[in-house]
């Protein structure tokens, strides 16, 4: 009750301080002196949002059902951890979290940009404040988290049990940090365009923000994928679901930007391209929020469907896009000296080619995601775009991308006179061809694309490992990330071609053979735990070497609301996962049992972590170089 009011009023105060900051900074921009009040006000703004956020957390913890959000999304029987994570597991709370991160980042930006040009700082503040005010209005008008219910309901409606998973509890906040980081990049690149400040030093400073959002976005996507693998029980980690694509697109854009900013920093060109990428990254993040939150894309992730919300975000999104385009076309000036002579064999050209590839991947995913929506409106037809589309369009180019990636990054800036280690490159290429041939023959899969992809990814793995031993290039973070990427593709590929699965309907006491393994359904246990009823099956799998694995997959029947979820039992080791999941068949003693062997699963997570570690090292170095 009381936290509810505190939360609501601090949100309003937050909005008020944003408006004041906006006006003050416009004034400071004119007189070219930063008003000291701006700093304290932006702290205050952050403080108000923080208070509001904590009030909501408290409402959830004490199960105050007079708050509509708590009533809709919580229940007094939920474990405390999930009560807290329930705060941002719903539409209203997650927007409050967006706002929290937005204001926090703006405050951090003000602190860490002390040495920069004043007018550029102020202008970044103005643009960022436009975004913040937009979100304040969005929260207050269409999705107020502090709606008061009277009379107070006795019990809440429950938190979606699929969301009761540790990976998912931290997945949205981390993804949001990545998205919101992109907003700082957006505002500052617009400010730099207006001030004509796109230069080496700008690139140096903005790279920190690019790295921060890139790291968080990578971790966020990985956690989402881990959640899908362990919780959804479909036995996959990436489904090319539109909502997943929507988080992957800003990531690709940001990866392109991360490479392109290097060229700007070292060689002072590709300016236009950098600005376009910065705008595109944030637009794609906003687009993601729009598509997920408006309910246009229906999938496991969509919870809130309210057209008025959709219209608000849509208008706001287009307002931002049009604003940035107007600014870009009116203020952006190309200078004569931007055209320098460039040589084909150089690092800058290889980065440009990397960008072309990334843009191609991005457009494939963008078309795959948006085409069904457009088609439906225009011709009233419904289609769904699935993995075959993406595989067919991405895989052939991925082969060339990886072959190129094994040569390009070792080029010198300006001009590469001769490609070093030609002999090694060719040697490794033949070695990887030889190894893949033997390997594919052994498992009996010799189609063209798989073979080529395996050759290319093995080659890249070898080259990136070799790079660790070469003394010439000191860029350790790059080596780790590139190695991580090559390992990621290799493990996804091996996982894809070597996975096998079987689905059977079994009852207690049955057994069946699967390849070299024999699976026994031993027994069944019923348990009543906290807020759900659990049915646990006991399975034993014996392989040809007489190793015994025990599996205890679980079915959970939640009461509030009544939902059945399957908890897969997964045995993980370095070479692969064994995955067993059961499903109930209505009115039958039979259970639907799915058993899968997924080789090298853990390497997918490890290699993603390597990518993140690479990024973090680079961030660490950046920070101390400064």
């Amino acid at each position, binding site marked *: 009750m009381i936290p509810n009011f505190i939360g609501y009023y601090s949100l309003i105060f937050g909005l008020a301080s944003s408006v004041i900051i906006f006006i003050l900074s416009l004034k400071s921009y004119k007189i070219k002196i930063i008003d000291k009040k701006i700093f304290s006000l932006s702290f205050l703004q952050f403080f108000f949002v923080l208070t509001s956020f904590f009030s909501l957390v408290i409402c959830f913890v004490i199960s105050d059902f007079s708050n509509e959000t708590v009533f809709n999304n919580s229940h007094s029987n939920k474990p405390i951890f999930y009560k807290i994570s329930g705060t941002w597991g719903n539409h209203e709370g997650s927007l409050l979290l967006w706002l929290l991160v937005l204001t926090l980042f703006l405050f951090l930006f003000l602190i860490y940009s002390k040495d920069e040009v004043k007018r550029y700082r102020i202008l970044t503040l103005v643009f960022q404040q436009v975004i913040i005010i937009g979100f304040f209005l969005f929260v207050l008008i269409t999705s107020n988290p502090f709606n008061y219910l009277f009379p107070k309901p006795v019990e809440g409606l429950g938190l979606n049990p699929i969301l009761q998973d540790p990976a998912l509890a931290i997945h949205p906040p981390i993804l949001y940090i990545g998205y919101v980081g992109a907003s700082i990049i957006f505002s500052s690149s617009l400010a730099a365009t207006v001030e004509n400040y796109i230069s080496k030093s700008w690139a140096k400073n903005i790279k920190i923000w690019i790295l921060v959002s890139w790291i968080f976005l990578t971790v966020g996507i990985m956690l989402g994928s881990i959640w899908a693998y362990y919780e959804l029980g479909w036995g996959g980690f990436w489904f090319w679901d539109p909502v997943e694509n929507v988080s992957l697109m800003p990531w690709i854009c940001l990866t392109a930007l991360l490479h392109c900013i290097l060229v700007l920093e070292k060689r002072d060109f590709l300016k236009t391209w950098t600005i376009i990428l910065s705008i595109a990254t944030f637009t794609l993040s906003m687009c993601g929020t*729009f598509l997920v939150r*408006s*309910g*246009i894309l*229906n999938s496991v992730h969509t919870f809130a*469907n309210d*057209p008025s919300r*959709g*219209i608000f975000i*849509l208008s706001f999104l*287009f307002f931002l*896009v*049009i604003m940035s*385009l107007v600014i870009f*076309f009116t203020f952006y000036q190309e200078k004569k000296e931007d055209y320098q002579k460039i040589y084909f064999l150089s690092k800058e050209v290889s980065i440009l080619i990397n960008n072309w590839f990334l843009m191609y991947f991005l457009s494939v995913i963008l078309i795959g995601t948006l085409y069904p*929506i*457009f088609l*439906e*409106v*225009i011709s*009233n*037809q*419904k*289609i769904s775009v699935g993995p*075959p589309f993406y595989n067919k369009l991405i895989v052939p180019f991925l082969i060339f991308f990886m072959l190129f990636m094994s040569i390009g990054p070792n080029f010198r800036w300006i001009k590469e006179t001769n490609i070093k280690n030609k002999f090694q490159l060719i040697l490794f290429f033949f070695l990887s061809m030889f190894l893949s041939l033997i390997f594919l023959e052994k498992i009996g899969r010799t189609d063209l694309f798989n073979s080529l992809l395996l050759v290319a990814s093995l080659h890249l793995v070898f080259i990136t490992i070799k790079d660790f031993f070469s003394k010439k290039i000191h860029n350790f973070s790059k080596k780790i990330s590139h190695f991580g990427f090559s390992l990621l593709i290799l493990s996804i590929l091996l996982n894809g071609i070597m996975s096998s699965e*079987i*689905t*059977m*309907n079994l009852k207690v006491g049955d057994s069946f053979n699967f390849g070299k393994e024999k699976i026994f359904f031993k027994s069944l246990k019923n348990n009543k735990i906290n807020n759900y009823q659990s049915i646990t099956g006991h399975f034993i799998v014996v392989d040809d070497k007489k190793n015994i694995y025990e599996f205890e997959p679980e079915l959970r029947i939640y009461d509030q609301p009544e939902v059945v979820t399957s908890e897969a039992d997964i045995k993980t080791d370095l070479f692969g996962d064994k995955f067993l999941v059961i*499903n*109930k*068949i*209505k009115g*039958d003693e039979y259970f*639907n049992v*799915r058993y899968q062997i997924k080789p090298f699963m853990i390497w997918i997570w490890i290699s993603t972590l390597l990518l993140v570690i690479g990024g973090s090292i680079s961030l660490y170095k950046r920070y101390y170089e400064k």
Partner: protein
Amino acid sequence: MKNKFLIILLIFFLSFCFFVLYKSLNSSGIYVPEKKEARDLPEFVSTELFSNKKISSKEIFRGSNFYILNIWASWCAPCRAEHPQLIELSKNSSIKVIGLNYKDNPKNAKKFLNELGNPFSTTIVDTNGIISIEFGGYGIPETFLINKDKKIIKSFIGNLTRDSLKEISLIIK
């Protein structure tokens, strides 16, 4: 000049995007099935589940007044629930019941039919789900009622119930 052209093009493109997204917001019923009644059958060639022989749609839809095409899979729980209804339909001599086995393991599919009885005169295999898409299927189970002229006259989304049987018997009367 070039810039102006670009800007106009961009404005057009953006307004088009805005329009489309705005429209799609308002069409709120996201998975409301379109009317696919009175639509022509798609033509396809597939394999038969038991004989493993290639069979074309022309051979399948021949020699009966009405056809029922049922999309099912052994892993689908509601398909079990609707099975008795299909068995009952198969007893009607003016209807030919055809099964479309969707994204399934043939071994499991055969076991399913042996266990519960086989109502299908022909069972065609749709390993990658393409035929179901051509039919305009939304998910499984889904059942299409097709007339002599090979037009889809009615579709049932979800499992067949007693009421759907009554509806079918009214239509084919």
